[in-house]
């Protein structure tokens, strides 16, 4: 059993299903971590331990994988994920200024979450929308041509 304040009984059941269906697949640890993170929102250390027991893998292996890939987050995330593109095209078009303003306004840097868990800020490299550079994504919505002022205006809409 796994008890953690952020993991509800429904999530727990889902986690058990994910582990059960991948138990015997070699190399399944990355998909399992991905699905568990989708279910819970992030990967608490206790969950990583639980997964390593479930998949019968050394804890250090699973932990090593979870920390290597930037997709995985070991700390709780905000209600909204703000991804600012720091790819080449966006950089050339001055995205840094927008990133700086967002960071300063909400008091967070890349990879951090606001205290009220409203936003998590992430710097990503190319969202594949270079034609609209500079680009930012809030949750699943992509915004192009963002100037610092506009970026802040857009974020205001996400509570």
């Amino acid at each position, binding site marked *: 059993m796994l008890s953690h304040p952020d993991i509800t009984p429904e999530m727990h059941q889902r986690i058990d299903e994910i582990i059960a269906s991948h138990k015997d697949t070699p190399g399944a640890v990355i998909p399992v971590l991905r699905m568990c993170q989708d279910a819970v929102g992030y990967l608490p250390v206790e969950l990583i331990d639980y997964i390593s027991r479930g998949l019968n893998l050394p804890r250090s292996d699973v932990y090593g994988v979870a920390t290597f890939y930037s997709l995985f987050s070991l700390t709780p995330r905000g209600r909204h994920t703000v991804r600012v593109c720091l790819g*080449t095209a966006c950089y050339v078009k*001055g995205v840094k200024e927008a990133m700086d303003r967002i960071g300063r306004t909400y008091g967070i840097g890349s990879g951090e979450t606001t205290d009220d868990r409203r936003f998590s800020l992430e710097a990503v490299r190319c969202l594949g929308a270079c034609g609209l550079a500079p680009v930012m994504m809030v949750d699943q919505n992509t915004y192009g041509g963002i100037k610092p002022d506009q970026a802040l205006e857009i974020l205001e809409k996400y509570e």
Partner: protein
Amino acid sequence: MNQHRIDLMLCGGTGCHASGAGEFKEALGAELERQNLDREIRVIETGCNGFCAVGPVMLVQPEGIFYQKLTSGDVEELVEEHFLKGRPVQRLLYKEPASKETIPIMSDIPFFANQMFRAMRNKGQIDPESIDEYIARDGYFGMARAVNELTPEEIIEEVKTSGLRGRGGAGFPAGVKWGFAAKAQGDIKYVLCNADEGDPGAFMDRSILEADPHAVLEGMIIAARAIGASKGYIYCRTEYPLAVERLSLAIENARNYGLLGEDILGSGFDFDIDIYQGAGAFVCGEETALMRSIEGKRGMPRPRPPFPANKGLWDRPTVLNNVETLANVGQIILNGGQWYASVGTESSKGTKVFAMSGDVNNIGLVEVPMGITLRKMIFEIGGGIPKKRKFKAVQLGGPSGGCVPEKYLDTPVDYEEIAKVGAIMGSGGVIVMDEKTCMVDMARFFMDFIQDESCGKCTPCREGTRRILEILDKIAAGHGTPGDIEILEDLCDVIKTSSLCGLGQTAPNPVLSTLRYFREEYDAHVYEKRCPAKRCAALLKFTVDTDKCKKCGMCYKVCPSGAITWQKKEVAAIDREKCVQCLACYDACRFDAIE
């Protein structure tokens, strides 16, 4: 297939989505339904059309009329005027910026007219979610030929004849690679598709996957037949959910049609494909790291030999090819290697897809015949540099690549010729930079990327890139000291020669190539504490040159912090107490008056 009077090929690529294609589609669908036209007119959401700069875009078939910058407010007029009365809506057609001429037909627009579509031949032409439409355009015919008519040796010969080289960066001949894996012994063999697309400023592979997923599957099946593989994986970047969705559907449909799975087309040949999603690590684009990642490990490269053709995934013989490489294969087998090789230069055959962005008018995705000059690509297809600014350099090949200055713009697109001027063909990222780009800042940008993405296994790559970044930071901050540039050069040399994988070996390139062509800019930073392009905030004065100021007030309008005072017919002034050093005024001033 149901016959429709008109097909509306609406771009559903990421770029157009972000410019409002979703709302437009909804409004269009509702209007067609309201007018009872939804049986004769069909809306198809395609992959990226390429001309993202003027999105959302839509192609009206069979006429070939191209609409740009659509909004939901245009729907009524479009339906009424064009689709009912047959009169294209002039104001929504493309206008050539120079001549102001309106060009209704897509293939007449210079952006498209100078391109040649092979890897992207179905782009925006078919519904990527329909296998029937892919087949209707000769899809899977090459594969059928490969499994039923040709021997594996003949397939490999054909690909060798075509001269097709890997499009993922290194340019290794695909046929030769397949030949190695075909000879290797193994109970199981694998074919992998590299859809990790890590270059931060490139989206060619994404667009191919979203626009024409079956072309990639077809290429993989042919490769599998050639080397005797039974299992394939597509390693796809996690940031590409739509590509994953379309690939999954394509795989399912291909299986249902007997084109994938057991006994393909009754030939007795078995091959199946699964998708494997990456988890956000640039180094996993490197072949050995990619294979480790599929094995569920940390994606760190290992030394070669043994080469993957002999010992790859799970130590079995494996072929890994890039998305674009594979997308060419079906047509090569169908039309013959000679056909493919009829275009291009001596050593570089066929076409290459580039993602062109930065300071260029027609930002988007282009496919050009090998041998075309960089100048033609940037100035004719790309439409030149906006805001009447001057061209400074073009960066090719992303973080492993280099920049090409004005004097080498007549270099043809060719693996060897581009390498001669200090850049690489790379996977296809083309970033155009105007005179307002600081080359020290650009080098710093790429180093920051590499530094972040180094897997950390080798010391030169991990520590060396960190040292380079520190020195570049120092130079940009105005603390450069004599000797710094020489230290940079030494570090570059060490990292290049002693790193294990391509990431480290090519990491110094952006620094080396900017040093090669723009050394005086480094010198200006170090010795004169001056940033000629005015991008490095620490070296700027944030004052208005009263002689140069033309009193236009542009800076005043853009300043977000109210730091600029200005009145009509008065020169502007900056209050440095209030200034947040955002550089907006530098960008806005057309007279170079802010120092």
